[in-house]
């Protein structure tokens, strides 16, 4: 009876999970879908408890451990989720993901190290344990490295950018493979070799990848943690776990592909190409800027006053400066004066696809004003003023004009087509890719140096003096 009930509960949970993932891919239903998925997880837990109600009654101490583990993990998770800043979203997702991988790894290790006495482990169980250990380790170390890189705690060591890393990673892969084969063959000694080599492999593969490609890596690692969960499902014999893990694994893979398309990068070049710009920036001999025009906030305000159509290009610098609210005030003032304002969102603006949309939404920017690159690009020639706020690589014309540039082929916003471009930037440092931006040298580009929040605040004051302020 309990088994049939558990079966129904599992089926229901899977249905809700699938609906949740489906709903998450549409703006309107996304929030409800997320809650639906959360409810589905709770139901799944309920199902496990129901299914083994009998054995739970006999072992009250199991309850203690369950409550202890879930209370600690759950409250830490809740605290992290509430306290983390919106700008730090990508590394937070990476951290969560790493812990998911760690969990699968621990389950597989526990089953392997302390096998149940009454059952001899078959080949299938061994294979799934080995896969779970391998994928779980890679997911854990890879995610932690990705987080550390995004946080700026780690940078890529120079030797990691040379060819040696391929050699090292091949050696680690071979070691893992040997360990996997001998473990499946019945040996018992290579378990820790497998843990160590796959953990190092996770580091070795993730460390050389450039920051701009990090979102793709996190998405891929997310897919891995789904695979690890499915493998753990084989280990403990849970169909629900297998389905859910496989679903996340496959969906993560698709999402990774979608992200790659957005950046015009292939998955292979992300994984094996290393940090873009680090090796090939030497080919571009004109790394010095020759024709920089700097201008004051006042000039910028005057130009804005005369404009009819303004496009804002937000980037990570805006997010770091926490200037999205000040930006919103500036655009309110401009709109109040009948100036047409839209935001051009590059697919990978910020540190993660969709990151900028989240930040601007936080500042109450209407969804309709956020335009995607393909829609905005043809409109730049008819635009009077473009404000580039803390964006760099996504407005670099090199990606179109210079075949030797490492950025070549990446879709960019054609801001140089507009009449006037203001680039608000702290200094002349290069973008995340480390590549010179030809845009800054163009005649219609003026640099406004300063922290984005401060410049926008000053801009707001200047506009007010010109009689431009938000109405109502």
């Amino acid at each position, binding site marked *: 009876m309990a088994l049939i009930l558990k079966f129904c509960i599992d089926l229901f949970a899977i249905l809700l999970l*699938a609906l949740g993932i489906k709903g*998450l*891919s549409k*703006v309107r239903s996304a*929030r409800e879908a997320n809650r639906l*998925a959360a409810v589905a*997880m709770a139901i799944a837990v309920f199902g496990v408890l129901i299914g*083994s109600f009998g054995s*739970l009654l006999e*072992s009250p*101490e*199991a309850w203690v*451990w*369950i409550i202890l*583990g879930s209370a600690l*993990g759950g409250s*830490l*998770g*809740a605290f*992290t*989720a*509430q306290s983390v800043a*919106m700008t730090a979203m990508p590394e937070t*997702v990476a951290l*969560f993901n790493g*812990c*998911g991988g*760690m*969990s*699968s790894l*621990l*389950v597989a*290790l*526990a*089953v392997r190290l*302390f096998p149940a006495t009454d059952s001899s482990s078959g080949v*299938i169980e061994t294979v799934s344990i080995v896969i779970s250990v391998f994928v779980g380790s890679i997911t854990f170390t890879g995610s932690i490295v990705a987080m550390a890189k995004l946080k700026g705690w780690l940078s890529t060591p120079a030797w990691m950018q040379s060819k040696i890393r391929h050699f090292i990673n091949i050696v680690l892969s071979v070691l893992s493979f040997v360990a996997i084969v001998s473990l499946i063959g019945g040996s018992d000694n290579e378990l820790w070799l497998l843990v160590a080599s796959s953990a190092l492999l996770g580091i070795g593969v993730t460390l050389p990848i450039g920051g701009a490609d990090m*979102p793709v890596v996190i998405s891929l690692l*997310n897919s891995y*943690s789904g695979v690890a969960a499915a493998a753990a499902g084989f280990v*403990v014999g849970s*169909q629900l*776990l*297998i*389905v*859910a*893990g*496989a*679903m*996340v694994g*496959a969906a*993560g893979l698709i*999402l990774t592909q979608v992200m790659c398309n957005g950046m015009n990068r292939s998955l292979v070049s992300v994984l094996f190409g290393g940090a873009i710009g680090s090796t090939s920036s030497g080919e571009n001999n004109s790394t010095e800027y020759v024709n920089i025009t700097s201008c004051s906030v006042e000039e910028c305000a005057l130009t804005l006053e005369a404009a009819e159509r303004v496009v804002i290009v937000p980037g990570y610098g805006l997010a770091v400066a926490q200037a999205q609210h000040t930006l919103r005030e500036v655009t309110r003032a401009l709109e109040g004066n009948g100036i047409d304002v839209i935001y051009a969102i590059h*697919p990978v603006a910020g540190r*993660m696809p*969709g*990151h900028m949309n*989240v930040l601007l939404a936080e500042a*109450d920017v209407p*969804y309709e004003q956020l335009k995607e690159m393909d829609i905005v690009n043809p409109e730049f020639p008819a635009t009077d003023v473009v404000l580039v706020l803390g964006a760099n690589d996504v407005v670099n014309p090199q990606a179109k004009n210079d075949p030797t540039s490492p950025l070549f082929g990446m879709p960019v916003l054609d801001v140089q087509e507009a009449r006037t471009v203001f680039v608000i930037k702290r200094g002349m440092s290069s973008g995340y890719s480390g590549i010179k931006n030809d845009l800054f040298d163009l005649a219609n580009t003026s640099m406004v140096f300063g922290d984005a929040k401060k410049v926008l605040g000053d801009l707001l004051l200047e506009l007010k003096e010109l009689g431009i302020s938000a109405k109502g």
Partner: protein
Amino acid sequence: MEFADAFWVLLLGSLLGLELIGKVPPTLHTPLMSGANAISGITMLAALTLIITADGRTPLLLMGAVSLGFALFNVVGGFLVTDRMLAMFSRKSSRK
């Protein structure tokens, strides 16, 4: 559970995952990734099963509890963070 059964479940689950995500607007890439990440914490079911079937053996209970903690960190944190992100979209549309 027979291996063949489990394998079919794996295959169908993967196909379902491939089918579910077709066209995703770039706006939703980050929340979707975050949400899918929370779901991958479903491995907590394995940790739970581990504790339940531990039969009183302390190392298993301990590893199961640690594993459960990691998984719940992923699940609870993942869903809450996704909700925080998505809340920003819906708050705006409800005002309109």
